[in-house]
């Protein structure tokens, strides 16, 4: 009972804190309103995008080739399912067509996440270890925003288009019926998936504050992300529950694919939305905690 009352009080104070923050938004943001701040961030984000294009155009031939090799990796995943289903009829509830929807969704999710975060997280360990984080912390902008979104990785561009083409082809060829609600729920779940991937990936990168010089810390999350190429329903019992409730990997690929196929309940969607917010909040908390352990290099 005491625990319950304490938790209630904690949340009450927390909500009050939120309310006060929004009430005093202008004071906290040097007299700017919410809209102005949003516009400012958008303009900064636009600059980041322009800079990324300029950086990639430094080695144009290499960039051009890497776009196509990146597309080649997409082919690996699609061919994998094509070859396997020559020998297999069904894996759990997943037949050939459904598996291709899953594979295309996986490619979409990976392309989106690589596009938005990969380059930033690749530099994460260096920022902390070399002390370059100082230059970000002194800027009048959210440090988490700048650390996470400063650079775009433009190479998955063709892969992204290819994934949509595969998805549309499978849906049309197999006459899978769609309606506007399924499409919207698919897009929303893709968004949820991006938030979950970002949060988990970001939290895993933050470990560098405690573990020291691990320049490949951003790769810790890669095997986990690759695991999402599997339909999670086929995993043994305990793992299935674990990846649904505790580490919600199931929402990264399986749930969006299921939603498009009309196999998903609304309760699961709501839970996905809720858990993505919790993880995003947690990522911000971990970042603030990690900054307390940042010692710089000078």
């Amino acid at each position, binding site marked *: 009972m005491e625990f319950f009352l304490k938790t209630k009080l904690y949340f009450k104070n927390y909500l009050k804190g939120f309310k006060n923050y929004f009430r005093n938004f202008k004071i906290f943001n040097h007299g700017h309103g919410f809209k102005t701040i949003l516009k400012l961030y958008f303009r900064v984000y636009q600059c980041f995008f322009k800079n990324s294009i300029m950086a990639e155009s430094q080695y144009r031939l290499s960039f051009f080739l890497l776009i196509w090799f990146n597309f080649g990796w997409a082919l690996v995943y699609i061919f994998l399912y094509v070859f396997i289903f020559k*020998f297999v009829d069904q894996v759990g509830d997943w037949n050939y067509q459904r598996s291709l929807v899953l594979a295309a969704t996986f490619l979409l999710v990976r392309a989106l996440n690589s596009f938005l975060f990969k380059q930033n997280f690749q530099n994460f360990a260096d920022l902390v270890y070399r002390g370059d984080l100082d230059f970000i912390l002194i800027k009048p902008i959210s440090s988490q925003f700048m650390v996470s979104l400063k650079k775009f990785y433009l190479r998955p561009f063709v892969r992204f288009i290819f994934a949509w083409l595969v998805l549309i082809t499978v849906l049309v060829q197999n006459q899978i019926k769609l309606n506007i609600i399924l499409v919207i729920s698919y897009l929303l779940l893709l968004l949820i998936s991006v938030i979950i991937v970002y949060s988990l990936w970001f939290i895993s990168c933050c470990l560098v504050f405690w573990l020291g010089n*691990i320049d490949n810390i951003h790769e810790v999350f890669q095997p986990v992300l690759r695991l999402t190429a599997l339909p999670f329903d086929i*995993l043994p019992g305990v793992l299935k529950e674990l990846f649904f409730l505790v580490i919600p990997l199931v929402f990264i690929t399986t749930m969006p694919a299921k939603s498009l196929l009309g196999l998903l309940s609304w309760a699961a969607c709501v839970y996905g939305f809720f858990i993505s917010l919790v993880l995003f909040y947690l990522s911000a908390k971990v970042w603030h905690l990690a900054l307390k352990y940042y010692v710089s290099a000078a």
Partner: protein
Amino acid sequence: MGKYLAFFKISLKKSLAYRLRLLVWFLWEIGPALIMLFFWLAVFANQDQVGNYNFYSLVIYYLVIIFARNLVLTHPDIALQKEIYNGEINIYLPRPADLITIKFVYEIAYKFLKFLYLIPTLIICYLVFLSGRHFDYQFLWPNLTFFLFSCSLSFCLYFLIKFLIGILSFWLTEIEWLDSLEMLIFWFFGGLLLPLDLFPKSMQNIAGFLPFKYIFYLPAQGLLGRLNQQQMLTSLLIQGFWLLLFFILVKKIYQRGLKIYSVFGG
């Protein structure tokens, strides 16, 4: 011999200093094979056979992949590119052994530590996927000998392929695309995700003309007892041919590269 032992010790100490970094790469290497194992576990709930494979032969195949990916695959190319680009390669040039040998000894020491991570992983995989189930795998010493010998050749061969990509930095500033191309071809034709005999015939034919089939796929087939003595010998000979070819290529290109290499400042 003493100087090589010294290089070995240096690399071992370096690997020990960055053991968590090594663990991350280790997880990265075992990830895809583990994912496929869970996938096949679900597939074999409904059927007993996939192509020529039953569940146990596929599990052994992927355990071999986990073993070989960690002990055979080397990546000297990225470090070489940086060293050539920044002029750090100078450090190696006055040393009493050539760069190829030094990097080779470094890689052996690196694998030594990875082996320590590998043992518990293989035991856990065995307990999860094979223990308590009856399977008709017959363990034979000639197969194991072939496997170990072939894996040793694979290690040298793959090292030379990667080294070749690395030293192309003498001419190219950016080699990431070459590395990516090599990995892509390897994943398609090396049997990393699926055993090659589950691929269409046309792709198997293409794989026959490339060295990648001999790095993982054929050693694994040998261990599974799917190759007769004649096939084992042929496989080793072809592997030896690729090894010799890449060795000559690396030697020639490295010598030419050194001639055009220049660095400024102290």
